[in-house]
């Protein structure tokens, strides 16, 4: 399975604490200092008017970060756009680390759950949302999780079986 465009969403632990508009200022601040390593931060886009939309988006050359509101569940979403190097496990590791870096930068603003999050393969050509791809993706996810989080036990499930949607894996800590 050759997928480059992975994404990850870490849910906010306390959803009512999210004041979406605050992230406009926060993300502008990140751009001023170019705070996210290995990313060229470019612009902030306010999508708060869209129901369950991308919320507040921070556009970087390498990928987009957002305080995402999909399904009404706020969370830090990172979607990779440019290729990363190495194996699929390497890609996923890079992407997880980028997202975690953003979560760390938001410490003090919001807390994120590390025991329940989503990994998405944003590539319908190489990773359609079917059983076969899910089976192929599982070991890649497990290896990447082990590299990033150590020997924690996780359950991996397919988030939706709708073939039109992207292949999304729900990662739940045991």
């Amino acid at each position, binding site marked *: 399975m*050759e997928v480059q*465009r992975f994404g990850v969403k870490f849910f906010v632990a306390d959803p009512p604490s999210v004041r979406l508009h605050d992230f*406009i*200022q926060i993300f*502008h601040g990140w*751009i*001023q200092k*170019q705070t996210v390593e290995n990313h*060229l931060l*470019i*612009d*902030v*886009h*306010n*999508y*708060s*008017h*869209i*129901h*369950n*939309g*991308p919320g507040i*988006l921070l*556009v970087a*050359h390498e990928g*987009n970060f*957002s305080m995402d509101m*999909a399904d009404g569940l706020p969370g830090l979403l990172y979607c990779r*756009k*440019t290729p990363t190097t190495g194996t699929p496990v390497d890609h996923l590791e890079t992407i997880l680390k980028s997202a975690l870096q953003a979560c760390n930068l938001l410490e003090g603003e919001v807390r994120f759950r590390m025991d329940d999050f989503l990994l998405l393969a*944003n*590539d*319908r*050509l*190489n990773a359609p949302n079917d059983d076969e791809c899910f089976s192929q993706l599982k070991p890649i996810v497990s290896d990447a999780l082990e590299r990033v989080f150590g020997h924690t036990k996780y359950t991996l499930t397919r988030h939706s079986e709708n073939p*039109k*949607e*992207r292949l999304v894996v729900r990662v739940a800590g045991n």
Partner: protein
Amino acid sequence: MPTWKEKLSITMEPQLVEEIDAFESQIALRRSGKLDEKIFAETRLRRGVYGQRYDNGHRNDGVRTQELNFSSDLTKGPDTLWDAPGMQRIKIPFGGVTPDQMDTLADLAEEYSDSVLHVTTRQDFQLHYVHIDDTPNLMRRLAAVGITTREACGNSVRNVTACPLAGVCHGEVFDVTPYARATAKFLLGHPDAQGFGRKFKIAFSGCRERACGLVNMHDMGGIAVTRTENGMEKRGFELYVGGGLGAVPHDAKLFEPFLPEEELLPTAQAVARVFARLGEKKNRAAARIKFLVAKLGIEEFRRLVLEERKTMVPDPRWTGYLPEVAEFKENPLKEPVPLNGQRPEGFEKWYSTNVYRQKQAGYAVATITLPLGDLTSSQMRQLADLARSFTGDNVRTTVEQNIVLRWVSEADLPELYRELVRMGLGEPGAGTIVDVTACPGTDTCKLGIASSRGLAAEIRTRLAAKLFTLDEAVKNLHIKISGCFNSCGQHHISDLGFYGTSRTIGNRKVPHFQVVLGGKWEDNAGAYGLAIGTVPSKSIPEVIERITGRYVRDRNGNETFQEFIKRIGKQELRGMLENLMQVPAYEKDRSFYSDWGDPREFTIGDLGMGECAGEVVSAAQFDLADAERLVFEGQLHLDSGDYAQADALAYRAMIQAALSLVKTQFQSVRNDSDTVVSEFRARFYDTNILGDRYAGNKFAQYLFRRHDSPPHEHTLDRARRIVEEAQLFIEAVYACHDSLTERGSAPISIKAVGKP
């Protein structure tokens, strides 16, 4: 690894396969420095690949101007960095989309953009923050569902728009849909529509009275009319030309009160020819057809077009589509059943603003109100499923940046509403004062001065809460906002219109909007508004309160808003706003010094140039770039051992290069190879023009030899030779073109585009 190209090659029309492969080659050529940036810019624009704010590599972050250090300094146009994210515009003729197309659009927004689809004021979709390297695959996926992005930007015929109610409207004379479709298809890539100095927009409307088609503000527009001839009803169009918004709006001029339907396409072609020939090319600010019509006068313009029409060789496509028009019919999915049964909470309000009962009893059009024209991929996919369940293929975008589902059986409306609410798309207020239209403005547009979307969002939020308590006369007013004078947000034709500008207070910039009152959306954009004065952005909501409040209080009986504005007059209106025009000192209230939704201190330092403003790309250069692309592809086939294909492409490249020169003297030359070679020989070889400075005549022999004696067998040697010869021939043609340009005899040039 599988590729979209392989996967979709059999699902795409061959023509689209070829076009997109060609674009991919042009990307490769530009990447390797073999294609000039100006020519590449116009090439990509003609495929809908547009630049975005900050793509010159500079951005003010509120404290200082940062250099955006992309890893490569390659450019995709003058002052436009390759790696900077851009916008992809997707043309949707008359706004008609099917559920399958909606699914694809949703997928593309997720995979290449930011999961948001934006509906424009001309029924297109736009995706933002797209990397140029992703665009060929994005286009292939669109092509596989029958959508092309060709000529979505650039100096070309843009999306052909039409009333979203066409075919179901009570007031229409007839359904303009099939005519809009035929016009879009006929002019797409038409050789006579390639040499414009600026874009060309066409619209169709089913009637004079209502607004939906907005013919009056278009370069060319047709209003459906009929007349009786020999006891038979005959269809035709009241044809207008030379309308347009922009900084200086022009009313379209009546070209013909009754243009018979069979004359629609040939007349459009003749108009295109005259515009291409006589329209301004150097000064882009005066290059729209409205300036040509104004300069010549409509009578002279009409005479030239009719003269041109007489010279045109008949084309079977002019009338070939008419039998389909007679048969054109949309198929509803469900039986017509009147509204009945339980109605969910909120339904009545939504029904009162978002439902239009069709002329076909038992059916209705439901408008999906999209805030600022945006919806997510997930909403789009769900909407596609709703269409599948309730209406079939009958979905359209609107120029008010909404989506309509047509042919909904009325009895299904409550269920449809429930579903829309579940998806977050059940907002009422379509077509009312809360349904604010805004261009992208400073969010993404390089020319944006003030935040049109930020202001629109603020106004929307404030008015939504009290929509149903507003006086009826105010409730149905329109608000339209542009980020600058270019008026993509159509502020001129709005009751309350605003366009972004800037003022310096002390030594700081303050975002402002010019207030334009009393424009008319009805009657096909029947009147343009009156500029009243410039007000700081942060005071605009108060402007709306004040003007609408006075209207409610002081209007005479059923006086319309336009009549009221006219009666009150500019001076008094200005007086009403005088104190709102003041800006508090920075130390007193800093909020005035930032724009809506953007905490950075306001600056106009981020303002970019409209793409290629001031650059002139000649038509011949453009064609020559295509010749180079063909020879490049020939080289790739040579490398892969496909000698026959290498030979064929190299030959086509030479024909294309020769054609580029011939067209400088004989614009409407046929493009079959015999004609091209013979014209080229007579005009450039026999006259020694090609050989004049660079011994080009020797290179012309390569073309003649290959044309007269195609190879019987394909070998590596032969193929390699022809590819090399083609390259040399193209160089000679370039040299000849440059020499002619220096002498001032190189002709027809294309001005690259400015505003979107």
